[in-house]
Structures are given as C-alpha cells and as structure tokens.
C-alpha cells in the first residue's frame, strides 16, 4: 500500500486526523490552482473549501487511475471552471492574440541587463494577471507546483499537445510583456 492509499483508507475508515493530513498535504496545490484561475482570494478560499468537501464526499469513489493529487486537482479545476462559466469569464480568449505576440518577440533582448530581479518578478506577476485563466493555471501547475505536462493534462482534461501549446504561448506572452517593459526602461 502506498502513502496515498494508506491515507485514503484512513480517511474512509474515519481514523482521527486522517482527513486533516489529506487537507494539509494537498491544500497548496488546490489553492495555487484555484487562485490563479479565479484571481479573487475570497472566491478562491470558498472554492478551495468546496473542493475538499467534495473530496471528502467522493473519496470512496476514487479508483486510483491517477495519483490522489491529480484527482484532487481535477476536482479543483472543475469547480473553478464552473465558477468562471457562471461569471461568464472565458477560460481561453475568444480570439487568439498569441500569434501576433509570437511574431513580435525578438531573440536577442538582454532582459537580465534591463530589469533587476525584484522588479522582474513584479512585472511577471502583472503580466500573468493579463493571461487567459487556462494559461495562468497551466504555468502555475507546471512551474510552481512542478506537475508534469501529463499530470497538467489530466487535471485540466486537455490533450497533452494543447497543454504544451498553451504553456509555450503563455511564456511567449510573458516574454513579450517583459521585453516591452525592458524597451521602455532602456
């Protein structure tokens, strides 16, 4: 029995402290995923709680076809997606503006020479806010949560090729935004 299976068995058998361990272990993934999607911390908090309530209700149905963290991530992503749909916020942009961005970025911009690290992080954060929700979320899953492309595809229900494409486009847009800033700063 691996760690996940032991924890699941403990939660189902109502062992004291088992569900608290599960929440502690996965709350960071759920929080990062949801907050990057919905942006508003109060909404994200509510959705993160709903995620764990649903995990608690449906844990007995978990078939271990993926890791527990991927399954929990799927629930979080699905709840956040429904929330955005209710608010009529698009997950992806209706028209693809990325192609213009890809044409604009250059190969030899010395970003490091133009922007200091601390300043750069602030600009990355600001540029991330402007990305479509799905691109923000995938960047977070991949770079912050260190999920594989395969796991990110399972969580979001997207084909692996689409995940790679969104990641590429998101990074290209961040780069374009930073280049624009570096151009202004220089």
């Amino acid at each position, binding site marked *: 029995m691996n760690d996940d299976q032991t924890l699941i068995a403990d939660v189902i058998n109502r062992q004291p402290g088992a569900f*608290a361990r599960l929440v502690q272990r996965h709350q960071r993934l759920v929080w990062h995923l949801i907050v990057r999607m919905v942006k508003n911390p109060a909404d994200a908090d509510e959705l993160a709680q709903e995620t764990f*309530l649903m995990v608690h209700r449906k844990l007995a149905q978990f078939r271990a076809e993926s890791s527990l963290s991927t399954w929990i991530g799927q629930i979080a992503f699905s709840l956040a997606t429904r929330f955005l749909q209710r608010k009529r916020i698009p997950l992806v942009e209706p028209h693809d503006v990325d192609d213009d961005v890809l044409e604009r970025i250059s190969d*030899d911009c010395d*970003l*490091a020479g133009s922007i200091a690290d601390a300043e750069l*992080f602030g600009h*990355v954060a600001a540029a991330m806010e402007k990305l479509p929700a799905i691109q923000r979320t995938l960047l977070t899953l991949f770079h912050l949560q260190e999920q594989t492309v395969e796991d990110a595809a399972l969580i979001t229900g997207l084909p692996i090729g689409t995940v790679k494409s969104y990641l590429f486009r998101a990074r290209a847009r*961040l*780069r374009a935004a930073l280049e624009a800033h570096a151009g202004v700063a220089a």
Partner: protein
Amino acid sequence: MNTPWQDHEARLQDQALASANADEPASVTMYRHIYAGVRWAPMPALATDFSARVLARVGIAEEAVSPAERRMVPMLFATLGIGGGLTAGPQLLGVLGQFAFDFAGLPWLQAAAVLTAIATAAAIDRTLVRNHRSQAA
C-alpha cells in the same frame, strides 16, 4: 508560501545556474528569468485557519444526516417490503401453487405499486441527504 530557507536555497540555485550559463544566448537567459518570475511572482497567501474551517464544514456535513434519519430509511424499506409481501403474497403463493404459470393472473398492479413506492422513497431519501449537504456547505 515558501520558507526563508527555501527562498535562500532557490536564489543560490539561480545564482549557480546563472554563473554556469554565463555564455548562454540572451533568449535562453530570458526564459530562465521568466521561469524564475513565475515561480516567485507574488501569490495571495492561503489563510492560516483554512484546514480548520474545512474540517469544521466536513463535520457539519456529516452531522447533517441525523442518526434518526439514517434509521428511518431502512425502517421505511422494511415496512414497504412487509406490506408488499402481505398484500401480494397470498395471491403469488396461490399462483405458484398451481404449478402452471399464469402470467396474466400475477398481481402485476400490486407489484408495480410496491416497486414505485420503493423507488419514490429512495429518491426522497437521496434528495433529503443532498439538501442537507448543500445547506451544511
């Protein structure tokens, strides 16, 4: 979300990478900075009492279906079963006792009534549980 120690380690790692890749093209350096930026970009912090609030809500959801309600459901099913048996049983036995099956003579109406009652009770039960959970949530 990261500890000062983790921050420190990550910065050391970034510095080591930067010096190791001093000759890399500017475009590669840029993407490394973007990765670092995504990693260290400000993120709203998770409330410190988050897990406590989740556990409280899970407790409320579990208590929402009271023990009396849990006992009521099997009792209802048992009553329906016994009632159905008493109503349709004698006729069923009479029919079975004839050895020759007379399908037209079976108490189809009573059987359908019992099954419908059981299905309705199960549906009501599920709805009640779902409502309790959503109210608790």
